[in-house]
């Protein structure tokens, strides 16, 4: 699965995940005057995460629009604006607030192109975030990408690095469909290299981060780092793990996933959404359906524990997959140990 632009080419400029988002938006706003940004405290404050600082100074309050705390309202306005010539980027401060915009996003934005027989487009981006362990409790910590991935008509991007954050967001802004992009809020200060020159990352192209022969670790967003760390732990045990980051879950690079699993014969799928009915379930099911005869072990799912995110650090840390847990499960399938108690 070659990337349209080589990851190695010209990686000469180190920025944070937060700067990557900022650069992507600034570049696209310069390029296309129909790109506008709406959300709470996106202008002077540059969001509580300070991700958008400086944009209002360059593009003015006509294009960087502070809204009241009325998510369904400004989401609906974005849908209408998108249908009539603008390319809105809607800032949903916490992924948890997606629940407030569900009708506008899932009943309106997602279905308009289809219901109009292809006559109307809704080119908009919802920028939001995911991730627990910030001690923010049950209404500010959820990873809800599986919910929107369930709705036909929405594309879902999950950047894991500054490089991906910038490239995927630029692609999302140019896409003629509604795209929801989830940033890992714990990684805003994480640094990484991006090319000096302009680049895009095509949707549906997984990134192979590490080659291996014993087990494939498929991780999304915040869990990509977890997979990398788990692969290091596994290497110490003599296990060679391949690490794959799908980058977008709609569309999903099934080819890359199946190719890798056919080679390693084992797969562990890791994602920070709840495990029940989640992204890990979807990917595991596709592997089981389409690479069944290549498998030497059951496909393992590791999602967030199926409980609301607890506030107490003593409990919260139990709810998210860790490198140790990923390594332990991988080791046990590589050794042919029974992984289920039943």
């Amino acid at each position, binding site marked *: 699965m070659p990337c349209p632009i080589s990851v190695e080419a010209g990686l000469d400029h180190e920025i944070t995940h937060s700067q990557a988002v900022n650069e992507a938006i600034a570049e696209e706003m310069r390029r296309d005057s129909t790109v506008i940004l709406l959300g709470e405290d996106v202008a002077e404050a540059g969001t509580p995460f300070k991700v958008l600082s400086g944009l209002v100074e360059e593009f003015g309050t006509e294009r960087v629009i502070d809204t009241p705390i009325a998510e369904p*309202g400004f989401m609906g306005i974005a849908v209408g604006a998108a249908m009539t010539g603008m390319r809105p980027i809607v800032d949903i401060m916490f992924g948890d607030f997606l629940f407030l915009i569900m009708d506008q996003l899932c009943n309106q934005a997602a279905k308009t192109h289809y219901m109009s027989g292809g006559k109307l487009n809704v080119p908009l981006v919802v920028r939001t975030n995911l991730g627990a362990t910030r001690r923010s409790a049950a209404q500010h910590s959820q990873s809800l990408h599986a919910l929107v991935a369930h709705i036909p008509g929405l594309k879902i991007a999950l950047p894991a690095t500054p490089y991906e954050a910038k490239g995927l967001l630029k692609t999302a802004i140019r896409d003629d469909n509604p795209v929801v992009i989830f940033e890992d809020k714990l990684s805003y200060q994480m640094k990484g290299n991006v090319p000096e020159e302009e680049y895009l990352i095509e949707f549906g192209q997984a990134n192979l981060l590490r080659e291996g022969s014993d087990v494939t670790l498929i991780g999304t967003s915040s869990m990509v780092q977890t997979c990398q760390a788990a692969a290091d732990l596994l290497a110490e045990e003599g296990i060679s793990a391949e690490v794959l980051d799908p980058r977008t879950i709609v569309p999903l690079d099934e080819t890359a996933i199946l190719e890798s699993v056919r080679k390693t014969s084992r797969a562990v799928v890791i994602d920070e959404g709840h495990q029940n009915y989640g992204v890990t379930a979807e990917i595991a099911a596709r592997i089981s359906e389409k690479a069944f005869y290549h498998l030497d072990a059951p496909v393992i799912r590791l999602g967030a524990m199926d409980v609301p995110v607890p506030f107490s650090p003593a409990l919260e840390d139990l709810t998210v997959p860790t490198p140790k847990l990923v390594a332990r499960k991988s080791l046990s399938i590589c050794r042919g140990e029974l992984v289920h108690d039943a």
Partner: protein
Amino acid sequence: MTKSVRKNTEQFLHLYKQMVRIRTFEENANQLYLNAKMPGLTHMYIGQEAVAVGVCEALENTDRITSTHRGHGHCLAKGAKFKQMFCELLGKAEGYCRGKGGSMHIADQDNGNLGANAIVGGSMGIATGAALSAKLLDTKTVTVCFFGDGATAQGLWYEVMNMAALWQLPVIYACENNGYSEYTPTSEIAAGSLKARAEAFGIESHKVDGQDVLAVHTLTQGLVNRLRNGEGPFFIELETYRYHGHHVGDINRSYYRTKDEETAWQKDRDPITNFGRWLEEQDIANSEELSEIASNIHAEADEAVRYAIDAPYPNHGEVDTHVFAGVKHALPYISGGRIGS
């Protein structure tokens, strides 16, 4: 001194104590954050004490409130204890919610607090529903729904106000207008008049100085009495100010409000200073008595903080309890209860 005057005296002192309790709690919470002893962030109520106290002192223990992300003041004013609150803020097992909720989700069922809420406007439906059940069950209890000026932008409020007015529900919508929603002045996020919005539904509406505990209390007491007699709903806009940042991490505020503005409110309109002065003028208490009240409360808070710091975290086994009512552990339950944990 006649009996009724003495009773009033006690009540006045109680209002004062309650405000000092809130401020003391918050100063300690802020310190816990600064000392990196508290997980996460929290939103300080300092400056707005007269609102919570003036309103909640008009309520009985069985009356209900719903609260917000800036909820410590409401919780204390409704009767919560320092120890369980500090334990909750630190994620300890003895907290009001066993450490599962934290600062933004403290609920205190015993005192009628249905919970803080981390979704702006998220409690408006809940409060109105509590008023509906009070009416259907004929409990004669009332509900106060606290929310900020920023929350008035949420459509939910207009939906529930409409129903509350149609069905004459015993609820007060209490909007604490502290001038800002996060980093944006209210004038930039609210068109027209807030009071007129409630009036559009035929709801009797009032505006009151939220820094004047007696004014808040007298107004609320009158409305509560009328709610118990079948009138309502009502709307109150309380003008107030938060002294600290939006949350404890919001230190550099000059890009959205001036230092002068902050100083002016603190100097001229502090609810505790002004009420303390009034108590002295009325010969209800002298300055030594007021300082003694404060130092007793400080000592109680110090002890509660120490207690909470040393208190144990919940056991790991609690992570999947309370997901479903009537189910001890959710994880085996959702797998049909047959396969092991």
